[in-house]
């Protein structure tokens, strides 16, 4: 039972354009959503997060949007750079008092120069 779904295994974008990575979830008990970036042979690194009580959070070139009614969130990268090429994981934290965090399968982003 995949509670966090990233339905696009890969995405290719031209340098300078916008990258939009999508994530859907099924569990209404998530209270925080996070995005991580992963380069080959390295561990994932935290990128940006959003509380379930907000609908937008912005940090530099990265913006995360949350649509609770649709149980959907997206990560926008503007402008995209070749160094952004990596696997992006969507993750969600369960609000049960612990910090159980569930990840999606990841989307591989290719930014072409």
């Amino acid at each position: 039972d995949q509670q966090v779904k990233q339905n696009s295994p890969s995405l290719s974008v031209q340098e300078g354009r916008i990258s939009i990575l999508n994530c859907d979830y099924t569990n209404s008990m998530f209270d925080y959503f996070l995005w991580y970036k992963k380069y080959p042979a390295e561990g994932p690194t935290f990128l940006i997060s959003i509380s379930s009580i907000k609908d937008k959070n912005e940090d530099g070139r990265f913006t995360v949007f949350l649509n609770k009614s649709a149980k959907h969130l997206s990560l926008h990268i503007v402008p995209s750079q070749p160094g952004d090429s990596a696997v992006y994981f969507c993750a969600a934290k369960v609000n049960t008092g612990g910090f159980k965090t569930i990840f999606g399968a990841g989307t591989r982003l290719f930014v072409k120069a």
Partner: protein
Amino acid sequence: DARVTQTPRHKVTEMGQEVTMRCQPILGHNTVFWYRQTMMQGLELLAYFRNRAPLDDSGMPKDRFSAEMPDATLATLKIQPSEPRDSAVYFCASGFFRDGPYGYTFGSGTRLTVV
């Protein structure tokens, strides 16, 4: 920069052998996670600890996997006996949680191959 250290980086073992993976979380972090990355499942949560106490290990096959934190500087994940289907990259992550944004730091992983 503080980092999470995992050893070994690579491990090749024969089916049936015991495998122990180690993780040194960042000093002061109170929560430690073990994840497994496979091509099909992405990052699967195996277990996690808060203040060294196991909070959830429902993601682990209980008959062969065990996770412990003998002290605040060491977390271990053990597989006994190992099977080829256990081949994956195993990540440890740590964080200090009191309030948001709930991001935490991952180690570089242990790539396990069981032949």
